[in-house]
């Protein structure tokens, strides 16, 4: 069957078992199954594509190294994504945070509502939103990813990135404000460029 690129692996379970047995063919099929989606996840967390590829590579090596520990092969989708997200968080702690330019956004006094946010986002496509995300400071981008896209709670995020929950919550709040500011600027930018 073409489901996993080779007829030998008809189900996800068979594919995972093949990987657990170290079969190169299974590993290639497994990689092909997840590569595009997971690199997309990495791009959301990274500052550049090169950085995303580094995270992606590290995550997949981990996936293959620890796939033997996956007890429920049918849950491989969420497991792989969790590995990728955690690798991105580790990368942030290890590489990004030490170099982070701690820009102060205290001056941002606006506190727009989610409705405003939604209205502003309405005209934006995926690429534009990704552009906004990339322009966020690293710590904010991480929180926005975890909270808005992955669906973690503030408490879970606090645990994942090893900060107090209040810090995680305030980071998201500031990130949302900054996003609106960027959207406003971006809109102006687009307007000016179009004009």
């Amino acid at each position, binding site marked *: 069957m073409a489901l996993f690129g080779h007829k030998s692996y008809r189900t996800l379970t068979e594919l995972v078992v093949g990987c657990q047995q*170290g079969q190169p063919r299974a*590993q*290639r099929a497994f*990689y092909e199954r997840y*590569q*595009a*989606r997971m*690199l*997309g996840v*990495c*791009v*959301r967390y990274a*500052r*550049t*594509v*090169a*950085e*995303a*590829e580094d995270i*992606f*590579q590290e995550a*997949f*090596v981990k996936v*293959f*190294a620890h796939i033997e520990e996956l007890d429920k092969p049918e849950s491989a989708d*969420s497991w792989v994504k969790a590995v990728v997200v955690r690798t991105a968080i580790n990368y942030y702690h*290890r*590489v*990004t945070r030490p*170099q982070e330019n701690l820009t102060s956004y205290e001056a941002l006094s606006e506190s727009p*509502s*989610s*409705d405003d*946010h*939604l209205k502003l*986002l309405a005209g934006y496509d*995926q690429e534009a*939103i*990704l552009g906004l995300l990339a*322009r966020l400071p690293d710590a904010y981008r991480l929180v*926005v990813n975890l*909270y*808005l*896209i*992955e*669906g*973690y*709670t*503030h*408490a*879970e995020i606090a645990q994942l990135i090893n900060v107090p929950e209040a810090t995680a919550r305030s980071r998201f709040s500031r990130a*949302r404000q900054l996003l609106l500011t960027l959207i406003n*600027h971006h809109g102006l*930018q687009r307007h000016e460029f179009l004009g």
Partner: protein
Amino acid sequence: MASNDMNSWGEDPDELLRQRWQQTFAEFEVQSRPSVRRRIFGQLTAQNQPKSTTWLVGIVLLLLFSFVLVYTIRRSDRSASVQSSSANVQLTSPTHTERATARRPTIPAKHATSLDKFETVPRVNGILAEQRLMNHQPIISNTESDVAKGQSKRHGTPTNRFRLRAKSNLPLTDFYRPGRPFVESAPFSGTRSPITLPPVVGISNRQGVADLVEHVDKAASDSTVENHVLSSRPATSFSPLIFAQLQVRALSALPSSIRTLPNRLPVEELVILSAAGAEHPSRQYNQWFVEAVPLSSFQWMSTSSTSTAYLTQVNAPAAFSPATWGYQINGGVRWQHWQAYLSIGQLRRWAYYTVNENRYRMESTPSNSYQMVREKHVVAENVALSMIGGGISQYRLLGQGRYMVELGSQVLYSPTSGQTLASLRGGVGRRLPLPVSQLFELQTGLMAEYGLTRLMSEQQQLIIHPIVVGISIRVQPRLPQRK
């Protein structure tokens, strides 16, 4: 995934926002480049490969270690056996001394040698097996009175031959005392049983060897001298012995009547003298060693000529910090002044730098203006490269054997990165006795390696020129102190 954040705010105010973002990125995919795929599967292969490589190297080292261990034990056993035999030897009276003395020609005094030290030639399945110089106790010695007299006497006449018998009731074995007139003994009776004390002849120097060969050649050409005996006189000094193995060619030229002396072993079996590697005892070592080297890496770095990026902020970890640590385990053998070894270990390769790419983006500033910002990203590599390989070096003992210096080269291969590192290696070490064993000694010292080839950083941006320093800790069989 987690549920919505239901907290004191009541209904999640961000739920709609969340849905919008999730919808936006639900199908978001980015196709990976083939190079990324190659890197991942290359790394997977490399991770699997070291296991088999480690096993292979381990097995080779184990075999090597077993070989030298067996060799060492056998050598020790031989030494002990010979010494034991020596202790059991009974010196019996010579027979027919006077008659034999009258009949046999004497050997020129220039073929003198010492009997203080011997090289024994055990006969194993009819093949002469050379046993190395036992530079300690003589295998056979006369009694103190004999030594004092310099010869054995019977009926007041000196003779060169003794009849030896082991306490195990082995048949009598004739023994020549070189430098003394040959005398004929009673017929050799019995089968050629295992020779407890093989007949030996020792020669004290190279000249003696040459003389001996000349003498044999002369005897071979002179058919009238049928019972010529190889002999030499006792040494007058205790200088280090030199043993030379007579060429079989020379011996085979002897008439059979000479080669097989009456009632004795053939000459080829009687005499074997080795000159190989006899200049100095230190050149005779065939020994093994095992060495552990905790090491620290340093790097000189330069940019690749093919690099299109502008690199800034190139940093390095602090000297001797854990980020630079590695190790090397070597096992090998020594032969004369050379040593060859196999090596397995781990080296650190790092590269911390910022890549300023040739891409720019527009960024707004608080003053509502825009500025061009060059895109850049930071690279922080610090990888442990598993290395396997080997090397060869020459060593010298200095300071009366207390110190050892070595200089050589080695080649290491990293299966992880596929890179090869050739380097010069030098070191100096201090030999110390190992308190727990009389057989082995410890050698500790400093070691340095200078990379002749270059390594590349993972993103091929930097050329890395490694220099490694370490502390070597080596265990080896005890070497004699050089004088």
